[in-house]
């Protein structure tokens, strides 16, 4: 019954309400002072009257469903904290919105600065690349200073900082790429007519980057929900430091870790997923459709890790399923593999050391010394460092297993979805909603469920860990494979048909070789996000401070212990360095080589 209502409403959203997009145009055009806004508003009401009704209907309908779900959760649950749901929902949403606004402002201004100023680019780009590759936990030592200095506001501030560190980068790199990819003829003609300064930003840059900003903001928004549970449930030396105004992530973490209240956690998870999907459909889809028209380039901008980049690769991407705007997957990847000069790399490393220095100073109130480092390496969990190779091996095996599973499933589903229209109509909506589920929030729920089934927390955690990794890794693979398959040039398809390649033969001879480069790209992104996820997936906070938290051996859980349980910044930084080394060497030894090998697969048409 509830499902039916859900489907009905989601369907209502999807069946086009252009009124929001009209709103967008309204806002964009308002910047253009030549046009009377009143006239626009008038046409907006007149022309999209029916769509407006539909939009309002879906808006109100979704809201009602949210309220009903909230009411059900509040009244039916025995959980004492359920009563706070409205406040918690409000605080989480406003927290993410505030962070999003800060991220957009920061990303756009710094992105434009880095793209237009050579010195700024040399200093900023590699350093931000380095920052973005640090998992959220890496920023943990930094926020602890605020946590205790500023009281309740400090906690709120740290949550926002943690969220910012997982949301902002996508927008920055998106803007950077978009500004740089403004066609030369546009740049030259603007210069020829003497357009410069603010006018240049306003008339050339801003319209050109609008789609990327929207796409990046959407990604940031999803990232925000993804990491919300990690940001709102800060643990320090075994204690949970909750933000005063609570939050959905906090509530979910409490429900699963503290009360082990499975039904409540599942309801909450559905509630959160609905909010994400609701906003996705209500705003982002419309915004993207709107922002997409009238710009210079196809909508996708993909930024991949480069030589000098440490850690996690991320992408800013938006694929419009079913439309003609499919990216030229390989060319984009090979173009935007960021490469840094030696000077840039050195600058970034110096800045990183300075940052570590400052953080350590803020935390301990005196300059970091050799003594401090020694102390860090002798206090727990440093004793586990002797087992480091084993831990690395275990974590790598988990990642590899999850990678192979997601690779196989994504190739199967991706090729099918791209080749069969009817299947696509089933797979794409699953993708759309599946993408909205905050996987990190799924973690405690899944663990509780599997623990119930197997009765062994270790086995349950191991399985949860791998499932989480698969769920997280598969999206990037799927996205890349679908887009590449759709991108097979007409001539190749016609040639294949002419000479009789059909069915399985077509897949093995034409499709698979063609998508290989994209599989490599997808793999880079998958491994990147996998490393980010495994840090949370190997470690289960305990409900009681006196009981040590549950963990499975691995380098991820070691990092968690250093950060959450013991507050050992030295070990934390050291392990981050180890992870960075692994990621970098994989990039150098495997991914770059593969990409180079597939260079000749590149079709220049």
């Amino acid at each position, binding site marked *: 019954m509830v499902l039916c209502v859900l489907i009905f409403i989601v369907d209502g959203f999807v069946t086009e309400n252009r009124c929001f997009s009209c709103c967008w145009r309204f806002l964009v055009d308002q910047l253009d002072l030549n046009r009377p806004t009143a006239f626009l508003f008038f046409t907006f009401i007149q022309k999209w009257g029916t769509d407006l009704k539909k939009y309002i209907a879906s808006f109100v309908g979704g809201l009602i469903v949210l309220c009903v779900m909230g009411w059900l959760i509040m009244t039916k649950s025995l959980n004492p904290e359920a009563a706070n749901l409205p406040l918690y929902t409000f605080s989480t949403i406003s927290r993410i919105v505030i962070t999003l606004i800060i991220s957009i402002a920061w990303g756009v201004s710094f992105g434009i600065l880095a793209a237009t100023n050579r010195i700024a680019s040399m200093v900023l780009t590699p350093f931000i690349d380095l920052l973005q590759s640090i998992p959220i936990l890496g920023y943990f030592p930094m926020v602890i200073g605020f946590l205790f200095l500023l009281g309740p506001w400090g906690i709120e501030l740290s949550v926002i900082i943690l969220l910012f560190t997982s949301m902002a980068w996508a927008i920055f790199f998106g803007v950077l790429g978009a500004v740089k990819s403004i066609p030369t003829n546009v740049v030259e003609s603007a210069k020829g007519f003497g357009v410069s300064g603010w006018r240049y930003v306003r008339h050339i840059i801003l319209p050109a980057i609008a789609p990327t900003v929207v796409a990046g903001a959407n990604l940031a928004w999803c990232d925000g929900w993804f990491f919300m549970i990690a940001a709102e449930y800060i643990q320090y030396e075994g204690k949970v430091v909750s933000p005063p105004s609570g939050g959905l992530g906090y509530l979910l973490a409490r429900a699963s870790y503290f009360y082990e209240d499975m039904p409540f956690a599942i309801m909450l998870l559905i509630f959160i997923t609905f909010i994400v999907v609701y906003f996705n459909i209500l705003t982002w889809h419309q915004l993207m459709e709107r922002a997409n028209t009238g710009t210079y380039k196809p909508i996708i901008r993909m930024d991949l890790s480069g030589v000098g980049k440490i850690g996690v690769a991320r992408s800013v991407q938006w694929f419009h399923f079913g439309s003609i705007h499919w990216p030229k997957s390989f060319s984009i990847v090979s173009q935007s593999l960021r490469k840094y000069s030696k000077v840039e790399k050195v600058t970034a490393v110096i800045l990183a050391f300075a940052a570590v220095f400052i953080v350590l100073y803020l935390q301990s109130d005196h300059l970091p010394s050799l003594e401090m480092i020694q102390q860090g390496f002798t206090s727990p969990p440093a004793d586990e460092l002797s087992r480091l190779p084993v831990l690395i091996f275990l974590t790598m095996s988990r990642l590899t297993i999850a990678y192979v599973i997601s690779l196989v499933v994504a190739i199967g589903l991706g090729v099918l979805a791209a080749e069969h229209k009817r299947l696509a109509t089933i797979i794409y909506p699953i993708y759309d909603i599946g993408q909205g589920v905050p996987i990190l929030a799924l973690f405690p729920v899944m663990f509780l469920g599997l623990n119930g089934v197997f009765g062994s927390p270790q086995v349950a955690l191991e399985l949860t860990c791998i499932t989480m990794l698969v769920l997280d890794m598969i999206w990037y693979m799927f996205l890349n494979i679908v887009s590449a398959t759709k991108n097979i040039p007409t001539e190749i398809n016609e040639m294949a048909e*002419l000479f009789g390649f059909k069915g399985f033969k077509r897949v093995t001879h034409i499709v698979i070789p063609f998508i290989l480069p994209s599989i490599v790209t997808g793999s880079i992104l998958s491994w990147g996000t996998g490393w980010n996820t495994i840090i949370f997936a190997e470690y289960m906070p305990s409900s009681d401070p006196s009981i040590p938290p549950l963990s499975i051996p691995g380098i991820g859980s070691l990092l968690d212990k250093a950060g959450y349980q013991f507050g050992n910044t030295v070990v934390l930084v050291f392990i981050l360095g180890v992870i960075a080394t692994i990621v970098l060497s994989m990039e150098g030894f495997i991914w770059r080589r593969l990409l180079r090998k597939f260079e000749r697969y590149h079709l220049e048409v």
Partner: protein
Amino acid sequence: MILLTIENIKKTFANGKSEILVLDEVSFSIGDEEFVCLVGPSGCGKSTLLRIISGLEKADSGRILFQGQPVTHPIPQISMVFQLFGLLPWKTALENVELPMEVLGVKKEDRARTAQDYLKMVQLDGFENTYPHDLSGGMKQRVGIARALALRPVILLMDEPFSSLDELTAKTLRELTLNIWRDPSAPPNSTIMVSHNVEEAVYMADRVLVMAPRPGRLVGEVKIDIPRPRSQYVRESIYFNHVDEVMAMLEKGKKLSDQEANPSYK
């Protein structure tokens, strides 16, 4: 002897809610040992027509008869050369030529030998193991031609095969194509080429079929009776007269289409 008959081909494309008539009742036939060129402005449906003949696309009504048999799907007797070559970038020149034989299950040694022969025919011997990435545009099209010939087709379809090449390369390849076509031991018997270059069409074809757009249809045909080889006549009036005749027919067709689209247009 008639090899191929095109009968009342009609084709519409859906464009949103409206439908566009791309081909309207197109009929003609191709004889043995004939070289026919289809010329027309862009959007007149000449490429679509070629794809219908090859069996890649289906007509809404009408039919294609090859030696009396209707063509409903691609057959080995009718092969095609693409404008943008359609080579697989992960296969060498030789492997690309082998490709059509691979689908038919020809043995590895046999197809390698045949592919070798056709690469030699297009003067690409020595480049067997080169990947398309490292070939020039002209060389790529040579591979495309060799691949199309590898199944010994009776009819060769060429979709603007030289329009993405520079003029010098195009000229060489035109000669090569004509030589292969005139060689009785080599396939194909007849060739249908789509072109938007009137000089090229007059230089190569026995007959030039002129098409007009909106809807795509035949507005006339010009018989080119310049003796072959024609390279000696390209500076003479017999050549220019034919070019002028085709141009005049193209202009007439365009005028007709404009008038239909807008009756007040003069």
